[in-house]
């Protein structure tokens, strides 16, 4: 464990996370997320089993180690610049992780039962620094659910990196749920290699933490690669969330979709950065991006920066962002059917969230999320 990558008091001034891929005016303060007063002197061990359930015999699931077998894959990830929420945190997750799982789906194996990982903080295990590696060999299919949560009210810290390597024809579904307590800090980075005809589907449900900084970088490396990123977030009180999603189109005929829905309440703040980057040579590719924010209180702050970068003539890119009050017409309709205003608002938010919650393949977990959202919305 090398000491120099730890973050000490001296360099806490300027931890700039989730940098916008192409920066803009400084007065808007959206070029990066400033993490203030953060220091970390050591990373205590994490002594819990994180494998909740998995299809035994079907898939290889191991505690992560720096295995030499996947040198080539590691090399791919190590050669990338600007991955993760920031250089220091990427380094930390890479070399100082205290937990993590390595999952390998072998060639042609199609597994419908999900691998379910659960990481939770408590007073004995206040930090999760995880590194996860998901390797899907040619034409395999795999689903992984990762649940980050808190088992008590201890302020938790999560900094993790999940790497996906989807070889030709493989399908990887990764569902991430974050319900850490409201004194926690969550830094979650994801990076994916997507091969020829392969597909990576990300589902992100960001419901907890005091501050949550999330990064997804999906590289559509080979022709006809595809990626979908569906996410919801719910922020209330003085929570902050900063999302930085990047779809890099390298291959020809690649497809990407980003759909983000969220609700902001009280004095919460959200920044959504979604980038579709069509690199030279990504001809006949298509990308679309949609973001919708429901604003419930006058003191919320909502930033959206949907970037569209293009160096290729023969592509189609589309982005749309909108924000606003709950649609008056819908509200009026529901109220005319006997719902109170409160119930009606909740119903509308649920209707935005529902299609994404339905993507959780475990009914038990789905129920848990539904209850969680229900409880949170009670306060509306």
């Amino acid at each position, binding site marked *: 464990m090398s000491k120099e990558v730890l973050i000490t008091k001296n360099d806490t001034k300027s931890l700039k996370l989730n940098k916008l891929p192409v920066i803009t*005016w400084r007065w808007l303060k959206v070029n990066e997320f400033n993490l203030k007063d953060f220091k970390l002197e050591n990373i205590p061990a994490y002594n819990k089993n994180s494998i909740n359930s998995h299809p035994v015999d079907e898939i290889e699931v191991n505690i992560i180690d720096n295995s030499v077998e996947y040198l080539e894959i590691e090399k791919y990830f190590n050669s990338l610049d600007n991955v993760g929420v920031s250089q220091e945190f990427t380094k930390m997750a890479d070399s100082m992780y205290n937990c993590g799982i390595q999952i390998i789906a072998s060639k042609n194996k199609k597994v419908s039962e999900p691998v379910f990982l659960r990481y939770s903080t408590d007073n004995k295990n206040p930090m999760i620094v995880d590194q996860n590696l998901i390797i899907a060999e040619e034409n395999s299919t795999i689903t992984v659910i990762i649940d980050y949560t808190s088992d008590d009210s201890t302020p938790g810290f999560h900094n993790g990196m999940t790497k996906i390597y989807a070889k030709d024809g493989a399908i990887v579904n990764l569902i991430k749920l974050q319900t850490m307590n409201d004194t926690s800090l969550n830094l979650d980075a994801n990076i994916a290699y997507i091969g020829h005809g392969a597909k990576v589907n990300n589902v992100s449900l960001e419901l907890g933490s005091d501050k949550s900084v999330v990064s997804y970088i999906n590289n559509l490396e080979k022709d006809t690669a595809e990626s979908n990123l569906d996410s919801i977030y719910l922020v209330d009180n003085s929570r902050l969330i900063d999302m930085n999603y990047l779809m890099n189109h390298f291959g020809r005929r690649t497809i990407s979709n980003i759909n983000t829905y969220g609700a902001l309440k009280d004095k919460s703040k959200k920044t959504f950065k979604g980038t579709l980057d069509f690199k030279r040579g990504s001809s006949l590719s298509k990308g679309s991006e949609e973001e919708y924010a429901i604003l419930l209180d006058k003191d919320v702050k909502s930033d959206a920066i949907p970037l569209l970068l*293009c160096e290729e003539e*023969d592509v189609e890119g589309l982005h749309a962002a909108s924000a606003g009050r709950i649609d008056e017409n819908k509200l009026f309709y529901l109220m005319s059917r006997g719902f109170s205003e409160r119930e009606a608002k909740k119903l509308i938010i649920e209707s935005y969230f529902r299609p994404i919650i339905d993507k959780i393949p475990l009914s038990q977990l789905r129920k848990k999320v539904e209850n969680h959202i229900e409880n949170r919305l009670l306060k509306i």
Partner: protein
Amino acid sequence: MEKRNKTYVEDVNRGVYDIKNEVRYSYKSDKGLTPEIIKAISKEKNEPKWMTDFRLKSLEVYHKLDLPPWGPDLSELNMEDIVTYIRPDTKMNTSWDEVPEDIKKTFDSLGIPEAERAALAGVGAQYDSEVVYHSIREELTAQGVIYTDIETAIKEYEDIVKEYFMTCVPPKDHKFAALHGAVWSGGSFVYVPEGVNVDIPLQSYFRLNAPGAGQFEHTLIIVEKGASLHFIEGCSAPIHSVINIHAGCVELFVKEDASLRYSTIENWSRNMYNLNTKRAIVEKNGTIEWVSGSFGSKVSMLYPMSILRGERAKAEFTGITFAGKGQHLDTGTKVIHAAPHTSSNINTKSISKDGGIAIYRGAVKISKNANHSKSTVTCESLMLDSKSKSDTIPVIDIMNDKVDLGHEAKIGRISEEAIFYLMSRGISEEEAKAMIVRGFVEPITKELPLEYAVEMNNLINLELEGTIG
């Protein structure tokens, strides 16, 4: 897929825009930026002390500020090599006949006096650092409308100029606003008194003839309560091998119930760094409409800004950017909703070809008290080949819950289906493609006064010649 052949022309012949005159001047400042140069310019212009002090203070600010870390690369721009002030060898004229022959010819070939006779209420023409011609129809003067060069305004309407000058765009805003504050020269001053509607447009045309020089004109427009105005600005320069810089400043004050339309067609030559700052402050029920066409320059950083300060104030922005070979045009708009029930509507198109870089950069900010505000943003980009680049960088910042905001951006190519359809109707492939490009920009051209729409179509035809097909 069918292999498409493209023929590229080296550089377009810009015709009348490239006519160069011999550089004759009665005063020319030294190259670079020092308090001595600033004092000399101010003395030469015979300015009041407050303005000299303002310039010197701006210069201090300029040296303190850094270059923007975002946007195009400005490292090639060396202010030590730029001559900031060149007084052409003529005085300000109010009769066209008195304008020196070569300058007159330049403006004649650009169609300025012709446009004046046909369709304008007043015309101003600036050549290098000073305004050489200004005129306004008598009936407007009778109604109290003031349209003059800003140097005259400082002398004759000192109180008004002093009250407004660089209050909308303060020098500390950014490095080039500070530069402007230090070395500004020329530009127009318009004052429309309460309730006066100026039906036909006023126009100022800026021409930079000298190589290695800067143009820093200041446009100050005040449209009083219930009044209205349409102002047109045109800019061009012949091509030189050295870098020129344009760091003008436009300050618009739109009062209660007033409306102002500000149209620009900019066709600077491709050695120009166009770092212009334009801003409007709009009061209650007022309207600002921007129509902005960017075709020329090597590098542009241009983002007209609307500050909607009064309730129900409105902003509209219609922009087109066409980036060709060697051009990096970073353009867009900023809107600050700072009062309840304000609304903004942004519509931009950009085309990039032949290695050109066209960037839309925008910001919509809805502040805490701006409840019930509405904003719609639509950006479309068209790439004509894969040597070029086109980015869309919008920021939407909302600080209250009672808003209605929509943002949409699209990027794409000329659709094969549309070409096929047109060809099936007997139109040649080249013509079909040109038609589609013209159709793409049509929503912008129709916002322009006729002669400018014609000019823009000509520019597009010049740009497209030989590049499509």
